């Protein structure tokens, strides 16, 4: 699965994007966030307040309860501040 990161999520993780092989039991966005936090201190810092992390699945806003897609792109980012 392709993961993309923006703004301070990107800065704290230290990567703009990466492709990962997910364990079979990682099924929802919530699972994904918990699994990423086990991958190192940078992920832990970036995703510490996971309640504020916004998610897009294939470029559409999604809830943390959403199921991960079989294929495609999952984006993690802070609340938006455009406009």
């Amino acid at each position, binding site marked *: 699965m392709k993961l993309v990161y923006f703004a301070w999520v990107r800065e704290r993780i230290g990567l703009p994007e990466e492709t990962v092989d997910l364990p079979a039991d990682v099924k929802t966005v919530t699972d994904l966030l918990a699994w990423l936090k086990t991958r190192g201190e940078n992920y832990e810092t970036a995703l510490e307040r996971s309640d504020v992390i916004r998610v897009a699945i294939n470029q559409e*806003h999604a809830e943390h309860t959403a199921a991960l897609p079989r294929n495609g792109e999952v984006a993690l980012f802070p609340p*938006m*501040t*455009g406009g």
Partner: protein
Amino acid sequence: MTAPCEPLVRVQAEDFDPAAESRRLTEGRRDVGAVVSFTGLCRDENGRLDALELEHYPGMAEAEIARIAAEAAERWPLTGLTVIHRFGRIAPGENIVLVVAASSHRRAAFESADFLMDFLKSRAPFWKKEHVSEKNSGDWVEARAGDLEDMKRWQR
């Protein structure tokens, strides 16, 4: 009701010309009664700010603005709608975002432009980083709780 207008959406690094965009929605027409244009500009926050760096999610930024614009075009009887959002480094006094709504009716033009801006703030994937005068790197602008409240005004 006639078919909703086809909104024009652009996400770009370059500056835009609000006058040219307004003209595009009125020129040669005799059915437009009202044009509301909103331009958002970069402020220097009383001299504190050197520039804003606007990061965006390419692809999703265009798609999300297009979704919001299409919703506005469904909801109000517009004759034209244009939304342009810039990304990259933007200095104080420069343009950031433009919404132009044209309609036969004054209230439709006002409300749809206002709606667009509220939704852009809270749903379009852009993030502002401040470059401040005193240090080399700045902080990410935090989302305002008020922005979300503004958006909720449009629920029905």
